[in-house]
């Protein structure tokens, strides 16, 4: 059965390529097979098989750097919050 175009599914397929190195390796090893396994339509499969492999790797690397930076920021905020929580807990306990 032919798959119908589904823009949300195509975005999810691209997102996985950007963040998941295993999915990326599998795709670069067998582009058509990966697209079919994801249930992409004929047109969607045609659009992804021509993806620029070098640009994909650079983009994935850039996303990874951004995620690491964001995780650091979230951890820093959590430390700030816990400091404040301790401060208020102590203050209210007086």
């Amino acid at each position, binding site marked *: 059965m032919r798959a119908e175009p589904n*823009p949300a599914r195509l975005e999810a397929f691209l997102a996985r390529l950007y963040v998941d190195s295993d999915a990326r390796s599998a795709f670069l090893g067998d582009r058509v097979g990966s697209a079919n396994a994801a249930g992409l339509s004929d047109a969607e499969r045609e659009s992804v098989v021509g*993806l620029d492999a070098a640009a994909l790797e650079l983009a994935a690397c850039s996303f990874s750097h951004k*995620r690491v930076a964001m995780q650091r920021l979230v951890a820093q905020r959590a430390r700030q919050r816990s400091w404040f929580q301790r401060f208020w807990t102590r203050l209210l306990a007086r």
Partner: protein
Amino acid sequence: MRQLNSGDRVGLSWRSELAAGIWQHLESIDIVEVIADDYFDAPLRRVRALSTLATQVPLIVHGIGLGLASASAVSEPHLNRIARFVNRVQPESWSEHLAFVRAGSIELGHLAAPPRSAATIAGTLANLGRVRAVVGSAPALENVASLLDPPGSELDEASWVSAIVSGSKAPLLLDLHNLYSNAQNFGFSAAEYLARLPVEQISIVHVAGGTWLDAPNGANQARRLRLDDHLHAVPGAVFSLLEELAFRAPQRLTVILERDGAYPPFSELLAELNHAREAVARGRARRSESERARRAG
């Protein structure tokens, strides 16, 4: 130099590393942009500090995590946080990117250019309707940089951005380094792109820097891709685009310099703000000259 005769404004994106410099040089900074997402879990004192800042300089708010440009609906919890922040800070205006940042259960952690299709135009317009209802106003919409030409695209970028901006009547935040980078990466003319946008809807402009990446391209040939990293000085080509925009746009422009790291001495950032003012002034002078010539002719 601070004031531009045209009423255009030039300012800086707020980062905690730049706080001291911004406070010390408010006379050289017309406006400050703050990242909403940086304040979602912030202690109350940090949010209150923004109110103090807002008494000294106009503030605008910039979002990075909404994921407006998608066939899927925006995250309601994220949207509610944006709404709370915007309503608390009461900025002059706020903005978000024409990007998707999550899909299904996957969080990208940053901005990805979506397929430029009728489906993502429809999805973005639907998302903007929901955002307007919850926040009470539409964000200015920012074009994003990409290393990849998004698969599934049916339209070129200028057509896609124009369709969304025209369809939503929302203002456009034109990031000139994103435009420059995409023009370099995908081989189109940045000037032609600029000419095709609904220029009268541009309210905010971002300028920033980036770097070149070598991308192996097989056959022993390397090619370069432009990365928008906000870690380098604004290139001359971006100031040239700013001049061209100031020539084309009849309305007041707000120009924001973005810098996210590798911070230089603050004097260098002030020099970049002055370069931006000079570029705007050149564009406005050309515009005045052109109008005079048209009236005389």
